[in-house]
């Protein structure tokens, strides 16, 4: 009986981890979108540099403080600039970046259309 109780307590304790599963997923998602500034080809998630380890702690703390994903990105871009994000946000510096593929696509479409009209003629 004693053993059973002990076993129950342990099982319950270990299952509390599942409550944190969402948080850990969010943490990883954010860390994957952050550029490690020391080893610039890697994300913070992949990197084991001192900076990346600390940044993971900061992200974790901020989530615990109730920050949303966007708030954390804002907090970090304020400190390190837009470059720390792999997925840059939509603002006046990135209009060109976001619209360029669309413009290229439209441009290509116009060329094809013109050719088709020419063939029909």
């Amino acid at each position: 009986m004693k053993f059973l109780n002990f076993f129950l307590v342990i099982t319950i304790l270990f299952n509390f981890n599942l409550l944190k599963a969402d948080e850990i997923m969010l943490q990883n998602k954010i860390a994957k979108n952050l550029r490690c500034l020391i080893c610039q080809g890697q994300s913070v998630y992949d990197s084991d540099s001192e900076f990346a380890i600390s940044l993971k702690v900061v992200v974790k703390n901020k989530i615990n403080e109730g920050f949303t994903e966007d708030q954390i990105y804002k907090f970090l871009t304020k400190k390190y600039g837009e470059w720390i994000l792999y997925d840059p946000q939509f603002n006046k510096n990135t209009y060109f970046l976001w619209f360029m593929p669309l413009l290229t696509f439209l441009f290509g479409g116009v060329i094809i259309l013109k050719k088709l009209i020419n063939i029909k003629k």
Partner: protein
Amino acid sequence: MKNRIIYLLLVIFIFIFVIFYRGLNNPNSYTPNTEIKSIPEFASETLIKKKTLNSKDIFNKNKFYLLNIWASWCVPCRDEHPFLINLAKSEKIEIIGLNYKDNLNNAEKFINELGNPYSTILLDRDGTKAIEWGAYGVPETFLIYENKIIKKYIGPLNSKLVDEIENYIE
């Protein structure tokens, strides 16, 4: 038609050439453009007196402050240490140390061995306080006046940079 294609290819080639040629002059390493203008708020333990200090209580005098992020394991910190000791002799400036992710015994040994230019040494055990400052490595140094960050130096100080700091405080 053929001429037009050649013309178009030439334009594209020149466009790409110019972009890459200009890229050659850009440095590979990126220095983040931080928007932090005033000192961040934080509380931290201190190394020698072992008490907790708030950032508001540290930078409150009407004088220049230098916040230096250092660690005993950081080799360039050893190189810049003599410059800090020289600067500390000036009455117009107070140097605050932020000990970054260090073993406390080693940090104390470092100070005992090379001298202590710092009026206060704050501890950053997990590196989170350095992130509040927008720092990403050691050593980094911030020149502060009236709670505003005037200048940030990434990497070790040298005689040229020390001259610059002395110009500021004169």
